[in-house]
């Protein structure tokens, strides 16, 4: 029998996401209410292919949030993510840029959350990195007069002379940044001193004596607090885990499917990552063991360019070349809803301060629900003696996640967890158990 009705998507918790596409449009997608259907609320900018967004970064603090957007024509715009007003526009030529934007587009852009110079609240710091490996760190202040902006002299340095930079990331404390790309091994820089502190080594030749050339396409820090663990995806569909304190070669390295890893995003719990590939596969992986937790299936047919994790709700957003913005439940890996945004999307960021309802009382509900659940699970997990838990650890994978959510939320918990990843693979299950003990 042909199906007559379409499959219903269960709808989203209140969420606000901003997407960026190849025509330089910024679209704001919001879902309101408890199980709302996300809709496009606003569209900023006029369609123009030269304004194609290459990178975007959001600083979603409570007061005065900022959104930085890097465009193809070399402009970096700083917007207000609430109403889309352009606060500052930085042309690359004007600010001590040494290069022509056409042949050296921006590959990475990060809006640092804490100001490097604490002199005024309207000051922010921007880390940019171009494809040819020129990184620069500049502090820009917004004066109250609209046009005027003062810019301190940028700190620039060159990451590598050869190769192209494809990915970059900044850790939670914002003292370290990593870069990687085609012909560029993953390297970690200290932003304060702007000096390189670590470089990866390429893995040895394989059994057939074939050396695969370096080509990193996505990378991130595994944990927000810890700058030592790095997950990187390569163009030949390999996922690698590096530990700076241990060795220069990857600790874990495994293949995922058969198309290049295009997006890697870390979870809040510090060991789960989300992968997006060039043929539209989205999966979550436990990096302690390198095992696949599960795939996010749902007619996703275009390459995934960007994944964003909501800092509180168990939701991720993914977007890519098929023009859909999709929201997924992290725990059940169900598609919550999909929004068709007409263009090929390049980036998505989530505005975490969004309150779904005008009445703020309702909005707290999903959060408190999650917390209640986590409390329950904690009670459950505290019940059985630790010997039994080792067996149950696999089944309780699902239940573990919310608890770790809470862990990251309640930050006064000590994270003295000795890095369990350093242990060899065989013990990984045990290390998982260790982590459990810490969390509960």
């Amino acid at each position, binding site marked *: 029998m*042909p*199906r007559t009705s379409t499959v219903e998507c269960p709808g989203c918790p209140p969420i606000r996401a901003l997407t960026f596409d190849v025509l330089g449009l910024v679209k704001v997608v919001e879902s309101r209410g408890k199980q709302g259907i996300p809709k496009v609320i606003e569209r900023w900018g006029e369609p*123009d292919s030269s304004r194609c967004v290459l990178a975007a970064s959001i600083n979603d603090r409570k007061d005065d949030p900022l959104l930085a957007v890097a465009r193809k024509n070399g402009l970096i715009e700083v917007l207000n993510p609430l109403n889309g007003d352009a606060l500052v526009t930085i042309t690359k030529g004007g600010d001590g840029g040494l290069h022509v934007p056409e042949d050296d587009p921006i590959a990475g852009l990060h809006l640092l959350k804490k100001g490097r110079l604490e002199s005024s609240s309207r000051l922010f710091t921007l880390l940019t990195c171009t494809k040819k490996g020129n990184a620069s760190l500049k502090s820009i202040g917004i004066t109250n007069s609209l046009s005027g902006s003062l810019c301190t002299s940028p700190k620039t340095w060159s990451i590598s002379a050869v190769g192209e930079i494809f990915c970059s990331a900044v850790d939670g404390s914002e003292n370290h940044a990593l870069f990687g790309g085609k012909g560029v091994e993953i390297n970690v820089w200290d932003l304060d001193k702007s000096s390189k502190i670590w470089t990866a080594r390429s893995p040895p030749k394989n059994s057939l004596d074939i050396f695969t050339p370096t080509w990193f396409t996505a990378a991130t820090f595994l944990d927000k607090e810890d700058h030592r663990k790095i997950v990187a995806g390569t163009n030949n569909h390999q996922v690698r885990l590096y530990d700076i304190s241990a060795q220069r070669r990857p600790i874990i390295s495994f293949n995922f499917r058969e198309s290049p890893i295009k997006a890697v995003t870390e979870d809040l719990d510090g060991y789960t990552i989300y992968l997006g590939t*060039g043929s*539209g596969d989205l999966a979550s992986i436990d990096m302690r063991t390198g095992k696949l937790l599960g795939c996010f299936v749902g*007619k996703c*047919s*275009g*390459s995934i360019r960007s994944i964003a994790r909501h800092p509180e709700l168990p939701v991720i957003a993914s977007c890519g070349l098929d023009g859909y913005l999709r929201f997924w439940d992290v725990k059940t890996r169900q598609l919550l809803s999909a929004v068709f945004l007409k263009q090929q999307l390049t980036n998505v960021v989530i505005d975490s301060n969004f309150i779904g309802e005008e009445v703020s009382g309702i909005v707290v509900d999903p959060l408190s629900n999650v917390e209640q659940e986590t409390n329950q699970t904690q009670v459950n997990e505290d019940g059985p003696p630790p010997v039994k838990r080792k067996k149950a650890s696999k089944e309780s994978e699902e239940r573990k996640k919310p608890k770790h959510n809470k862990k990251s939320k309640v930050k006064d918990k000590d994270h003295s967890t000795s890095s369990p990843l350093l242990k060899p693979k065989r013990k990984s299950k045990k290390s998982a158990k260790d982590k459990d003990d810490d969390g509960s």
Partner: protein
Amino acid sequence: MGGKRKKGESDVVGVGEGEEEQQQQKKRQMLPSLIKNKEKRSAVHAKLKHEKKLEKRKKLKARDAAEKRALELGEEPPPKKIPRTIENTREFDETVCKPDDEELFAGNDADEFSSILKRECTPKILITTCRFNSTRGPAFISELLSIIPNAHYYKRGTYDLKKIVEYAKSKDFTSIIVVHTNRREPDALLIITLPDGPTAHFKLSNLVLRKDIKNHGNPTSHKPELVLTNFTTRLGHRIGRFIQSLFPQDPNFRGRRVVTFHNQRDFIFFRHHRYIFETKEIKQSNSDDKKFKDAKDEKIPQEKVIARLQECGPRFTLKLISLQHGTFDTKGGEYEWVHKPEMDTSRRRFFL
């Protein structure tokens, strides 16, 4: 078995005509496939079929009569019923292009094909094959060369496709077509738009070459007109523009040559025709000639201008397998669209 039931029936109803009708209904309800004896089964089946046929004829007659009466009385004839097909009960697709979508047009202006479609540059096509190539492959290519103006065939040799892409870029080609042959039969078409993508991979099937078409014509070297039908969704629109960019955008109407890409249920049918307009007075419409493809004319029994078609060939069917962002790169390529088995949730879901 049947007899027993009949008896029961007559006991209950007991009136002449009503009884018969009831019996008939009962018979219809009882499936012939439940009868185990083959002879009886086939007899019942034949009877059922005959009844159905009669009924259908009756219905048709009634409908025709109603229409005729309505015409005589000068009323509106009863509305013609539209059969339900897979296409017109297609699942709702939000990606279907709307004519008032300004973002769509902005996207069109920005895409890779716009320079050709705005006639800023003329298409120049390189046609090559897979490494091994024999019999039907070259024949197909020679026909492709006659269809697509400004197409050049290059021997494949043992070059890598990526090298060929580089070469073609430097020689200002705008597209590469690779005809892939398997078991001496062309079975795939890889079309690469230069200089920077996209790359489409089509499955090719039902290839009928020109010489195998009865009463085929031989095409002239005029630039053909292009007909693209039913490319509705965003992906379909893109594929349509993709195909359009293979052909020059200034058709020579004197050539009266049409190349058709007709999309139906995600299959793209290719046909190549010559047409002619003729003024003719026809005695009566030749109603038996209802064949869609070789339809001789619209049957209007007056002196009329009619269009006649002659197929030039070849015919083939394409089905999109993947659309890749950028030029050919199977290992590191990013796909804009790939067909995955999990997408086939329904027969009524189409992507183009």
